[in-house]
């Protein structure tokens, strides 16, 4: 299996996971990657042997720490590239995404970091001058008022990647303290249900009240202070709002 292929698979697993908060199956991947399911199954078996993923019940695929690392890196590159191609170079969304899919495998870390910085500074400059209309272009396309819409990435036939969190998003472990943040997603786990019940849902405005040196955090959600362990804080993705 080629390394770009491996990266594509792992990225697709992560994206599915971020979007649906459930572990995808080979069938889902076949759909996302437009590849025949039997080929996917072969690839998935290979990746499992390599220790990138773990196959659970009913063929649910989850990433190992190693797989997660790779997927995360690629996904970040993808977002930066897509943003760059779309927002700065003015390509349409679809082409930008497709191009990004190819470039993400070969581009070096230095280049991607430079582009990322450029995109960020361009974004803030636009924010200064352009008012609301343009400044939000770097963000997730924020849905209308029903928060359920925030949870539904894109439309019916959009690939989840297209409207996945923008490059300004980070987990609570890297987010700034004491300013309003918007939840973009939770990468899930057993405790997902409890987090949702407490109001940690995409679109919700929260404040990171405290982060200790050990990365335990206090998050203010719906005016309540909630203490979270680092491993949970790390699964909550937010962006400045």
């Amino acid at each position, binding site marked *: 299996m080629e390394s770009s292929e491996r990266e594509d698979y792992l990225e697709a697993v992560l994206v599915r996971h971020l*979007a*649906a*908060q*459930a572990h995808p199956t080979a069938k889902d991947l076949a759909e996302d990657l437009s590849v025949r399911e039997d080929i996917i199954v072969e690839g998935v078996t290979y990746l499992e042997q390599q220790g990138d993923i773990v196959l659970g019940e009913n063929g649910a695929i989850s990433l190992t720490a190693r797989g997660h690392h790779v997927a995360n890196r690629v996904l970040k590159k993808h977002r930066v590239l897509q943003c760059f191609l779309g927002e700065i170079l003015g390509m349409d969304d679809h082409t930008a995404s497709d191009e990004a899919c190819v470039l993400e495998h070969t581009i070096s870390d230095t280049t991607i970091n430079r582009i990322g910085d450029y995109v960020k500074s361009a974004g803030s400059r636009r924010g200064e001058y352009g008012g609301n209309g343009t400044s939000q272009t770097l963000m997730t396309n924020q849905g209308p*008022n*029903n*928060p*359920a819409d*925030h*949870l*539904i*990435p894109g439309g*019916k036939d959009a690939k*989840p990647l297209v409207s996945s969190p923008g490059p300004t998003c980070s987990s609570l472990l890297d987010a700034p303290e004491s300013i309003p943040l918007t939840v973009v997603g939770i990468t899930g*786990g*057993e*405790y997902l*249900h*409890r*987090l*949702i*019940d*407490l*109001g940690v*849902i995409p679109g*919700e405005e929260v404040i990171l009240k*405290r982060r*200790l*040196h*050990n*990365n*335990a955090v*206090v998050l203010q*959600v*719906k*005016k*309540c*202070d*909630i*203490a*979270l*362990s*680092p*491993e*949970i*804080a790390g699964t909550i993705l937010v962006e400045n709002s």
Partner: protein
Amino acid sequence: MKIGLIGNPNVGKSLIFNQLTGLGVEVSNYPGTTVGLETGNVCYQREKFEICDLPGVYSLDGDSDEEKLVNGMLERHELDLAIAILDAVHLERNLYLFLQVAEYRLPLLVVLNMVDEAENSGISIDSSELSEILGCPVIMTAAIHGRGTGLILPSALSSACPATVTVSYDHHIEAAVRSIMGNFPVSRPVALQSLEGIGTDQEMLDSSAAIAGEIENRHKMSPGQIISANRHHFAKQVADRVIKVRPKKTGFDLDRLLTKGIPGIPIMALILIGILLVVFTIGSWLEGMIVAFFTSYLVAPLLTLGLPPPLQQVSVSVLLGLQAGIGIAFPFIFTFYIFISILEDSGYLTRAAFLADQAMHRIGMHGQAIIPLILGFGCTVPAVMSIRLLASRRERVIASFLVTMIPCSARTVIIAGVVATFVGIWWALSIYLIVFILVILTGLLLSRITPGERFGMIMEMAPLRAPQATNVVKKSWRKISEFLTIAMPLLIISSIILGLLQYYGVITAFQNFIAPFSTIVLGLPAYASTALIFGILRKEMALGALVVLAGTPALNTVMTHVQLYTWAIISVLFVPCVSTIAVLYRQMGLKTVVMVTTYTVIIGIVIGACIHLAFA
């Protein structure tokens, strides 16, 4: 007629329950105090009502025991009426649960509690508007000041009615619910839950799963998540309509100090060590007075009576038992609980849990586990019961071991009564040090070898409040009277048995049997090992037994310092007392009890032997 109190954790349900029933259920300022179901009866206008204090929950569709319990009661229509208690300060989050409860269409009364705190933080709530929107009566209370609580029962009985408020879900969800309700004879909340995969009817679950899969494919999120999001959104809209916030200048934020690494962690250490030291000092002082009183005013006069020997033996034993109960344990346990209750009610324990999260990770648990550990200094039994707070079985197993090793106040009595009195205060503290090191080592070991999943900590921080003296005293008094009623008879009876066994020479026979082991391995006189066995009944009884068997309270005249030290450390470490074994069995099952007991016996004997060898 059965009335249930439903609400989020820490909104004042137990306090209101106590005020309604006149009973004394534990009220504490941290989430998760009430785990089981508390029931009490009230008579109102010559009719009898049964009131239940339900455990606090955040929603009804989760899979914790508490959520299942509350949901089950609603689903089986076990309640004739529910009083929904909402925290006025956090109304929006509380409405999320309420909207779910309302779907069961049982008569409801909404109690907006904590209006005093809401007022203080500039929040005012339009209760008639809220009542309009929800479609059921709303009353405002500040239970802690008894404000408005008198109205709860009359309003509930005269005007409670099913709420009319309805969350309109995403149209796919609504369609799915209609189709489930069309095919199966179930109510709306049951249909919604089956869409989330919760329920008992397999056939319905299967068909719901098919629809759910379809919805999930379209929305890229599960029906459960869509439903929750819709409820949150609805709750927000309601809250926005009824809440007015007057901007208020924020005063000094104590939390800024308490939840920062520096000075938070030093403050925590100071508080905990401070409590231990103060309890130790006050306890020993009170104990000295009580023992002196018993000896000079009761035991001495008794001995001068010249009763026939068996009778005299029995009466002395009764007095010694009483003395052990009142005179020894009472000063320590009561003082300890006063302090712990202050900590509980101030909301500080959740801060401590947050700060301790990382340290607790090292020993295989999360921050919340510090609560059972702290409670363990008072009495192991409630500490073991609070282990339920922990999310995963893995954590509960580890906590079972560590909590039983923490020196409870009964063991403090031994440390104080034997080591501090006869050997020296620093030596007494060194026992604590040894036990802590063992606790940490055990935790490190267990976190490596205990199988099971790891969850992180998700804990709501209780608001900081000034503890109320009455609640603190009441709570401590309840604990101590529990102790006195349960432990006193046990103590007196076993003291008598011990006295008689000694009188008839049975003890001597046992001692001869145990003597070689005792003297060679532990370096202790045989009677000291016999006394240790009595510690299994209640820890501080080991001390009582030692005094009886040694024939004198001046233990330093019959045992060396090393012997006293060894004896104390063994009795602190080895075997949890009978009551602990019983709750541990109920909570965790036979396997854990056997493992914990075996482990503590081994560790007690090994450490004892090591000290003997080191000094011999």
